[in-house]
Every structure is written in structure tokens, then in C-alpha cells.
């Protein structure tokens, strides 16, 4: 039976990546195909409805899948992750010359964040700020690629630009993008100061439903985990997808995001989309 996986085409390179993986997986004896979606919500709904067996999910999509599946009496597992998906952090950044010295000093000020559905630059850091006791925070959102759950980093970059331009007092972004924006010059060297850093959390995961053909699903996971960076055939694909190796999936790293989702009512406990101003 064909194992069908969903992926979200947040960038043209996604076609290259999954076409390449498809060719490789089929070459290893797995009857595999993929379907590309324009946003995560439909992918999640199709996964839980059994239209596809697996989905390369954002962390937010993982949470919704888990809730929708539970509400229907079904089970989903976090089967495999990239090594780069584990133990990420986000940072709250201010201009180097800002009078803001502590998170509490942000009270009454404006913070720039990414898209409404970005786990790393909106949901998790705003939850972190709330839990750090920052009151009366004004939030300026940069809604780029809504529905892509922050995979498109345009919103984070716009927030960083707004920080440099003095339009916001602070900006939130994933640690890796703070490094990237510094290297590419979006944040000129020495122009910003890290005010706070969230705890570690996990990012994307391969969600596999219990409706998937069991043998194919197991083979799929085994094959992904067998991919080695030393193999010149798959290395370019791993480079494109941003990993050195696939590691066993886990669910322990989604707590911070789950809290943020519950605090804001982004999804209800049964997995319905309840976020205001969210139109994927």
C-alpha cells in the first residue's frame, strides 16, 4: 500500500526536497508518495480524516493534530524529527542603546513579533513575556505567510527591521534567526541586545496516524533514520531540509507552545481553530 505523506509548500525548495526524498525512498523499496499543501490547517484536517497517512508538521500543526485525533478517538505519534528540531530557543531583542534593561521594563512598550501563527516569534515568546510578568505590552504583528506557522521567516525579519528602524521597542525571533539576521546585516553587528531567552522547545515533527499502513509507516521511519549525511546522494537533500540526521521523535518539547495555545485560545481543546484574526 502506498504511504502518503503531506507537506506544506512554504518555499519552492519543498518540491525539490520531497521529490528527492520520494525518489530515494522508492529506491529503497518503500511505496511512498507525497501531497503538498498551501497551509498547515488543511494538512492537519486531511491527516486526521485519513486522507493522508503522515504529515511533516510544524509544532503548532502537531498540537492541533493531537487534539483533533484525540477528539475522534484516534492516535497520532511524533515519529521522527530533524536533529535541528530539538532544543530551540527564542529571544527577545532590543536595540543596544535601549533604556530597557529587563523584561519588566517592556511594560507599556511595543514588541514586534512575526505572523499570528508563528510558534517561535509570536506564540512562545509572547507567552514567555506574559509569564515573566510583563504587563500592558503592545504587540505589533508582522503577518507574513499566515498559515505557514512561521516557516516563512519574512515576518520575523520584518519585526527585526522594525526594531532597527525604531518602530518597535523589542522584537522576538528564534535564536538561529538572530544569528542569521546578524550575519546578513538585517541586524547590524552590535546594534541589538538580547533581553531574554525562552526555555528550550521542539520544532517540526513527522506525525503518523494510527490509520497509516503499519508496515509501510515503520519502514518509512526506519529509512529516514537510516539516512546518513555521508551519503552523497541524500546529503544535498538533507542540506536543503536543514539537518544532519533524523532522530527519534518525541513529544516532550511541545509544552511551551501548548501553554501559549491555551493562553490565547488559538485552538480549543478539541482542535478547532479559535484564534481571532487567523485566516490561513
Amino acid at each position, binding site marked *: 500500500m502506498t504511504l502518503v505523506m503531506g507537506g506544506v509548500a512554504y518555499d519552492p525548495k519543498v518540491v525539490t526536497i520531497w521529490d528527492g526524498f520520494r525518489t530515494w525512498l522508492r529506491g529503497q523499496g518503500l511505496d511512498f508518495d507525497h501531497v503538498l499543501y498551501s497551509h498547515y490547517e488543511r494538512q492537519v484536517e486531511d491527516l486526521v480524516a485519513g486522507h493522508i497517512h503522515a504529515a511533516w508538521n510544524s509544532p503548532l500543526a502537531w498540537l492541533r493534530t493531537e487534539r483533533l485525533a484525540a477528539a475522534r478517538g484516534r492516535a497520532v505519534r511524533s515519529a521522527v524529527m530533524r*536533529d*535541528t528540531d530539538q*532544543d*530551540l*530557543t527564542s*529571544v527577545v531583542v532590543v536595540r543596544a542603546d535601549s533604556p530597557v534593561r529587563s523584561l519588566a521594563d517592556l511594560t507599556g512598550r511595543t514588541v514586534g513579533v512575526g505572523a499570528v501563527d508563528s510558534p517561535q516569534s509570536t506564540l512562545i515568546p509572547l507567552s514567555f513575556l506574559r509569564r515573566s510578568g510583563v504587563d500592558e505590552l503592545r504587540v505589533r504583528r508582522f503577518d507574513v505567510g499566515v498559515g505557514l506557522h512561521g516557516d516563512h521567516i519574512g515576518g520575523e525579519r520584518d519585526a527585526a527591521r522594525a526594531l532597527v528602524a525604531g518602530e518597535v521597542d523589542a522584537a522576538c525571533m*528564534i*535564536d*538561529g534567526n*538572530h*544569528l542569521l539576521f*546578524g*550575519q546578513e546585516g538585517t*541586524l547590524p*553587528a*552590535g546594534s*541589538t*541586545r*538580547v533581553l531574554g*531567552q525562552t526555555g528550550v522547545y521542539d520544532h517540526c515533527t513527522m506525525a503518523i496516524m494510527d490509520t497509516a499502513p503499519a508496515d509501510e509507516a515503520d519502514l518509512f521511519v526506519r529509512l529516514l533514520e537510516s539516512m*546518513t*549525511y*555521508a551519503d*552523497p*546522494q541524500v*546529503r*544535498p537533500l538533507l542540506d536543503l531540509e*536543514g539537518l*544532519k*540526521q533524523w532522530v527519534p521523535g518525541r513529544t516532550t518539547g511541545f509544552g511551551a507552545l501548548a501553554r501559549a495555545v491555551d493562553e490565547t485560545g488559538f485552538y480549543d481543546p478539541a482542535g478547532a481553530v479559535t484564534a481571532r484574526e487567523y485566516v490561513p
Partner: protein
Amino acid sequence: MIDEPRPGAPLDLGHLGFEQGAHLLVRRALRAVEVGGRVTVTGGDPALGVHLRAWARGEGHGFAAVPDRSATWELVRGSGESDRWAGAERAGGPGPDGIVARPPARWGLAARGALVEAGGPDSRFDLDDRDVVWADLAPRLYAHAAAAQWDPATAVDWTAARDVPADVEAAVVQVMTYLVENEQAALVVPAGLLARVHPHFREVQQLLAVQAADEARHVEVFTRRALLHGGQMGTSSAGGRSSLATLLAEPDFSLASFLLSVLGEGSFLSLLGFLERHAPDPVTAQVTRLARVDEARHVAFGVAHLEHQSRVDPSLRGKLRGAIERRHDALADTAGLNADVFDSLVVLAAGAWTPAAIARGHAAVQELHHAMDDGRRQRLSRLGFPPDEAAELSALHTRNFM
């Protein structure tokens, strides 16, 4: 220069941050330990912890903050870098002594001697056999060719124009027109071969590139000489172009360079010498002399290459013979040399319109034919043809000279 990092020694970055290149020092320290080895990093850049974590994750290294110590982190070297270069190989050696007989397509555009990462596209350079393209003389010829490049703007004294009788000037214009046509063919042939030679044989590519550049210059100076006195270009015959078209159609590297360089350009050496000798003005003499020096180099490479190949391939002479015969047969029904060109050569050598002068000019052109034939036979002999066969094959060479 900083000392080699002591394996596993703590790395103090001072106040250097990742926005200023800190990753270079971190990577260097990690390279000094085995995969799985640990490096402790410390530093004063406020964002260092954030950036170290993100950088290490992206590079596949382990990361942890050292408990009880501020601004100190521990990295564990991952296998990403060693995995990437696991199947890498050297693409021969950088010098001519590092050339391999059959460079694989996977080396592609990699510099000779480079460490080539496994994977990547296979190149489509079909001329990938050392014996098919190489000549030991190639590096020296290239160095000579690069040093011998001249600037058409300054190497020729374009103001040295002299009054040339109208008839003789028309003859010069016609011959120049014919030369341009031939040089264009001589430009396209090496350029086409160049694009097919495996870059591993870079000296051959370089030589062909300079050869094409030579021809480009010749096209320029001959055109400029033709138009020097305000006239129009001369005629181009169908037969002349048919002859050149057969040169362009030869796909085999050795046969193409044989027909072009050894036979064609070889004959042109005599022609250009003839034109310099009988030039009615200094500019004509200069441009034909400069071109002849370049052409001599092209002929030298062609002969050297084929000498090399005839030593390793006993069947080569049969192939060369076949190429001459095929070209002759293909051109049997064409008119060969542009009659306007032949007549112009006579007029140039005559220099005047008296019967005696024309007879002199005609005799000179006959001598030119003999000189071309002699040169071809000598070069064919160097490639191992016995004298009678060399004479027979030389006689089959196109009447278009090139």
C-alpha cells in the same frame, strides 16, 4: 599567526561575537578534536550563548551550558563535517604531472588537484581521454601563447598607409575578405572543441582559448585592413564556404585539429608569408606577419598533439587518411578556391598590369602552391606517413587552402 589549537583546550573568544566571525575560531577548535570530543568555549559577547547554541545545532554539534559557570558552554563535535568529506577524492594533482588518463565525469569543473566532495552533477565533457586531447608541449605552448598576445590597436601602425593603386588595393581587399572568412572558421572550431574538453586538461583548454582569441584578433585586423581606404568588403564564394563548412562538421578532436591546424593553418603559413612578401603597403605586411606568428603556434600544437597520439594509437594514420579523403570527396563537386581570391593573389604578386608583371605574379602563385604542398608533406611525414603517401594526401587537400 596563532598557534595550532591544543586539542580540547578551552577556547576563550574574548569579546568576539558570531556577527564578527567567532564561528571561525570555534570551528577550528572543534576540528582539533575527534568526533565526539568536547571543547569548552567562553567569551564576553553578550549574545554568545544564544548564537553558539543556534550555530552548533545547525552544524550538528552538541551544545550545553556548563553548570555553575557563567558565560561558559561545552560543545561536542558532531560528524557532519567528516561525513561530508568521507567519500571525497583528489582530482589528480595540480601540475601536468598530476594528470590522470581518464578524469571521471563527476570531477566536472573542479580544479585539478582539488579535494572533490562526492555527489554533485556529472559533467558532459566528452573529450575526457588524455591520449585524445593531450600534448606534453601544451603547457609550454600556452605560456608562450599568453606571452605573445598583441594589441591590434598598437601592434600595427595603422597610419603607415601608403597610396596603393586601385586595382592592387581591390586585390588586397579581396584577399582580406577571404582571410576573415577563414579566420572565422578557425575561431569556431577550437571554441567548439574547447567546450567539450574535460577541464582536467586545463592547459589544452587554455591553449584553445588563446587560439580562439588569436583568431578573433585576426578577424579584426584583416577587416580593418580591408576597410582602411574606405572601400567595401570583397566577395564570398559558395565553394569557399562549403570547404570551411566541412571543417566545422568534423566532430573528432584529433581529426578536427588535423584538418584545421596541421593541413589548413599549415598551408596558411605559406599564404601569410606570401602576402607579407608581396604586400603593397606596410599595414598589409604587418597584419599578415603578426597573424603568421600566431598561426605557427597553432600548427605546432596540432602537430605535437598528433605526434603524441600517433605514438599511442597505431590506427591514427588510417583515420587521418580517411578524414582527408572524406573531405576531398565532400568537396569534389565544389569550385574550391574563390576565383576572385586566386586572381587577386596574382595581381598582388604582379604589382602592375604589364604582361610581364602578370606572368611574374602567376609564377609566384604557382610557387606558393608548391610551398604549401611542401609544408603539408613535411608535416605529414612527421606524423609517420611515408613520402609517397604524404604527397598523395597533400594533393587531396582542399583547393581553398584552409
